[in-house]
């Protein structure tokens, strides 16, 4: 039976809160190098998500710390962990404590400094990446919400949400009627379920982006099918 909206509103307190932590391994886990799950492991995951969204090792990374991150990043190794993540290291990579040395070897220049202005969570970082040719950039705002879990809340100026826990499609497209329907129809045809979806646009009929967190393994062929949709400019499959 489908409950009416009014019935939903009458439910007990607690059922109306968002489920920020989805499963047992977001509570027990991750396996990680210390010392802090939010300031080290979560930070590494944010860095690694940025790396995978960018798709290559950046030559230049600017890392802006906010809130508790800004106050304590040196003691927690937050900067080291983010740099490790940018080098595609996992949270329990034994090389993580030496990430800055590895960055030198990889030719990645890093700037770490406190950010200014408003921020959405006590543990927030803004990451700006540039490639060697200087023709590709990524700007991403990530939050570390506890126990190593993260929420990316902004990508290149679009307000979106992704947790990097699921295979996730990040699609840059034009804001036209029916684009979402065409994409989701393709997912239906491939029997892929969407767990969370967010969409934002710069302006009406302008540039837009959608993020789809999906269940199960994603066949890379799906990405190719989405890429050929005329209104779609770019598709990234994030699968950490």
């Amino acid at each position, binding site marked *: 039976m489908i409950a009416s909206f009014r019935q939903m509103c009458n439910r007990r307190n607690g059922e109306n809160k968002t489920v920020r932590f989805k499963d*047992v391994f977001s509570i027990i886990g991750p396996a*990680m190098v210390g010392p802090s*799950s939010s300031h080290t492991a979560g930070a590494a995951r944010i860095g690694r998500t940025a790396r995978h969204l960018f798709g290559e090792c950046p030559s230049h990374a600017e890392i802006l710390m906010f809130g508790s991150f800004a*106050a304590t990043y040196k003691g927690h190794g937050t900067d080291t962990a983010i740099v490790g993540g940018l080098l595609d290291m996992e949270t329990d990579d034994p090389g993580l404590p030496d990430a800055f040395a590895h960055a030198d070897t990889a030719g990645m220049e890093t700037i770490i400094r406190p950010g200014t202005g408003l921020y959405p969570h006590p543990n927030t970082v803004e990451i700006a990446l540039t490639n060697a040719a200087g023709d590709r950039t990524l700007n991403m705002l990530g939050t570390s919400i506890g126990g190593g879990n993260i929420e990316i809340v902004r990508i290149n100026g679009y307000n979106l949400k992704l947790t990097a826990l699921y295979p996730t499609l990040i699609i840059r497209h034009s804001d036209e009627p029916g684009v979402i329907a065409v994409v989701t129809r393709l997912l239906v045809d491939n029997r892929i379920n969407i767990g969370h979806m967010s969409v934002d646009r710069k302006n009406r009929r302008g540039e837009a982006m959608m993020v789809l967190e999906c269940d199960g393994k994603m066949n890379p062929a799906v990405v190719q099918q989405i890429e050929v949709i005329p209104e779609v400019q770019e598709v990234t499959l994030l699968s950490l």
Partner: protein
Amino acid sequence: MNFRTLKQLAELAETRNLRLGQLMLEEQCHESGEDKDAVFDQMREYYGIMKSAVHQGLHTDTTSKSGLTGGDARKLMAYRADGQSLLGHASLSMSYALAVSEVNASMGRIIATPTAGSCGIIPGVFISSQERFGWTDEQMVYGLFASGAIGYVIANSSFISGAEGGCQAEVGSAIGMAAGALVDIRGGSPSQSIHAVGLALKNTLGLICDPVAGLVEIPCIVRNGFGAITALGAADMALAGVRSIIPSDEVVQVMLEVGSAMPESLRETAGGGLAQTPTGRKITRDLQHK
């Protein structure tokens, strides 16, 4: 997951005639779409990493990069060797909890339970109790699922990060998770497990997050040691039939209320508490000049 509150968790386990750990394994399989063996094996691997961390903490140098902490677990092990420790066997749980937390502070490999700042408590009480009672690894892994079920409710009803809710959210949650899981492994009812959670959480309400120099060392490490003892105490109380008169779900709501009212200086910013004592400030200054 088919539960949002501790009450629902206990009722669901009783209805399905399952231990909390068994129920959480089933729920996890449903959530992730993976089969039982794969999910169980991942948790078994985590338990192995916990054991390695205890071993590492007791047998290697755990001096942290700052040089402020390390070696206290070994001190306690040496002290308790003659059997005269005031705590008796419980001092082993405390030693193991310190060992894992010291490994964490020295950038060793641990499992966040639920966080790294509170990573000593569950391994501390689990591994020491397993040695004492001769429980199998399988029982312990089910216990980890039970602790995960409890943590899942706390995390989604309140918080588990010091930056959001203070130390009560990290060490407090870990103690509640450990206590409830111990009751589950020891054969208590799901309802007794939930009482253990409420009893434990009441003892850490209001605990601030005030790490000296922003490091997960002072006071985090000793709080893990004390946390192990509290978890054993809460489990014993619940197994004896002591109840949390304020229902555990209401205690979790108090944690949310207290944490939300906590000033930012006491939520993992090193802006207050022990971090801003004359000695805390001196340590911070000295490290900056190092």
